[in-house]
């Protein structure tokens, strides 16, 4: 019984991280219909940014989140304006996908050259503290990361719901032409979307870096996980990302505990496949497109 509760708690904590790590991907997919393969780069880039801030400048990873988000915002903006938008305007659905792939290759190469391919981790002073709740034990770091993840999702949600930019982004996703006729500069909206998504990806990367060891090559994993989370929950909505992330977190820890670690990924991918076949728009459906 205790083991089950412990597993569920671990699963939820991990799921929260999967959720926040997927929201950027979800936003870009929902608004621009672009499968953004640079997503994992921004996640892992955030982890390395926090590593530098912590090991060189001695800044606590949590405090490095805001400045790193700013940097990622600027990089995301530039990346979208310079390479992705021109590809989107080619009209070929795969063109944008390929450009993001090419960009990811460049970035992962630069990360490897800069940081080497060896495994890194960030362990601030509080990283080995264990909280006990009866028989259940919880890593303080995981709990903190979970809380920060939820807070970040809430911030992004409010931005989309209540800010002027958020409204313009949603409108453009719903009808690009309709929004343009209202006087929206669609390109600026896409750049903004990409920049915001990148900032939140980097923030999630900091949290991941605090919890798990990482290498540059992990970027692929985080892109794929974002993919699964979004497919599971539904495209473009934060609720979908939350639901998908938590489900995936639970499934993956349950599989790990009761079937064995070798089956974790297989079960996750099977769920992805199954969801696609029965409910291609995810459990909650797309936030922006009518379901088929």
């Amino acid at each position, binding site marked *: 019984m205790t083991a089950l509760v412990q597993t569920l708690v671990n699963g939820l904590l991990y799921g929260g991280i999967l959720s926040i790590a997927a929201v950027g991907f979800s936003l870009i997919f929902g608004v621009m219909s672009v499968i953004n393969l640079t997503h994992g780069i921004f996640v892992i880039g955030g982890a390395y940014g926090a590593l530098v801030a912590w090991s060189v400048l001695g800044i606590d990873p949590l405090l490095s989140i805001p400045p790193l988000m700013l940097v990622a915002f600027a990089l995301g903006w530039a990346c979208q304006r310079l390479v992705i938008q021109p590809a989107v305007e080619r009209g070929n*659905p*795969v063109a944008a996908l*390929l450009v993001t792939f*090419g960009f990811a290759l*460049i970035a992962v190469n630069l990360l490897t050259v800069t940081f080497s391919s060896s495994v890194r981790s960030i362990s601030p002073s509080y990283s080995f503290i264990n909280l006990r709740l009866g028989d259940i034990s919880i890593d303080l770091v995981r709990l903190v990361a979970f809380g920060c993840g939820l807070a970040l999702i809430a911030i992004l949600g409010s931005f989309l719901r209540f800010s002027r930019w958020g409204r313009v982004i949603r409108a453009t996703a719903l009808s690009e032409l309709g929004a343009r006729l209202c006087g929206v500069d669609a390109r600026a909206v896409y750049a903004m979307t990409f920049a915001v998504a990148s900032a939140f990806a980097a923030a999630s990367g900091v949290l991941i870096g605090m919890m798990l060891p990482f290498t540059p090559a992990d970027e692929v994993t985080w892109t794929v996980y974002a993919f699964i989370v979004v*497919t599971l929950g539904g495209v473009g909505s934060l609720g979908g990302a939350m639901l998908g992330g938590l489900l995936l977190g639970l499934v993956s820890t349950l599989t790990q505990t009761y079937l064995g670690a070798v089956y974790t990924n297989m079960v996750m991918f*099977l769920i992805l496949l199954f969801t696609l076949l029965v409910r291609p728009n995810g459990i909650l459906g797309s936030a922006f497109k009518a379901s088929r």
Partner: protein
Amino acid sequence: MARRITILLLAVLLIAALTTLPFFLKAFHIRVGLSIFLSAGFAVCWWLLAGFTAYYSFGHTAFVGIGAFAAALALRAVPEAAPALQLAWSLGAGLVVAGGIAAIIAWPILRLRGHYFTIAMLAVALVLGEAVAAFPVFGGSTGLALPNLAPMGVRVEAFFYWIALALLAIVMAVAWVISRSRLGYGLAAIREDEDAAQMLGVPTTRFKVVAFVLSGGLIGLIGAVYALNLGYITSDSVFRGSLSLEMIVNSLVGGMGSILGPVIGAAVMTGVTKLVLADLLEYHLAITGVLIVAVVLVAPDGLVGLWRRRRAQSAGR
């Protein structure tokens, strides 16, 4: 008619020239040629589905893996047979098993369109890759070894060079025949507008399934050769996302508009990677990335499209 004969003649000459090449080349360059033929073969098979129907699979490495493991397991059943028989037997196993599994998943998967199909194929590849890694029949994380089937006195790389060349010629011929057939026109109609095609009486489901099974089966065939050439396979080496991506990238770099696209793309990309970038190993990925971005932005219809545009321009002047 005269033009057809010229093209046929040129093709025969080219194949003859490529066949004799190993006698003049160093082992390293033969291996480069072999890599080009294998990746061109994969790209053409991927294009067989994507180029005709615009169903972009992101998981065709699944069929490479199926073909490879089918060949390896098939060879375990006949350890004593003559090498030539073993070769035929393992290639046959790659073709049939990959084609069979393609046939099984074709119907549910092909109901999905656009991004959904793309992602679903990725999931198929990931599931199979993980399953193969998890179950001991497939050697688990240690993988399976395959015997060396090259005849005595023939250099291994040259042997597989010839086989890969032959298979490339075969899959190109298959693609070419399809492009002139009713199937080809039906598939092109699906690419332009699937619903309209269906209303015009094109049996869209059947045509898509046929293209999918051919594509998967032929990749399995080449995948068997890929495995024999490696001599030793693991889940990671044959169910590899980068293999799927290479098929896509090569086809797009070359151009999706014609069957020459994937071949030229594979030749250029593999050639550049193995020959030009060999000394820049550290920056290999970044340079590949720059190439991909550049091609998409500068030559959206690929190198073949670029060449055609150039020619149309100079003809118009």
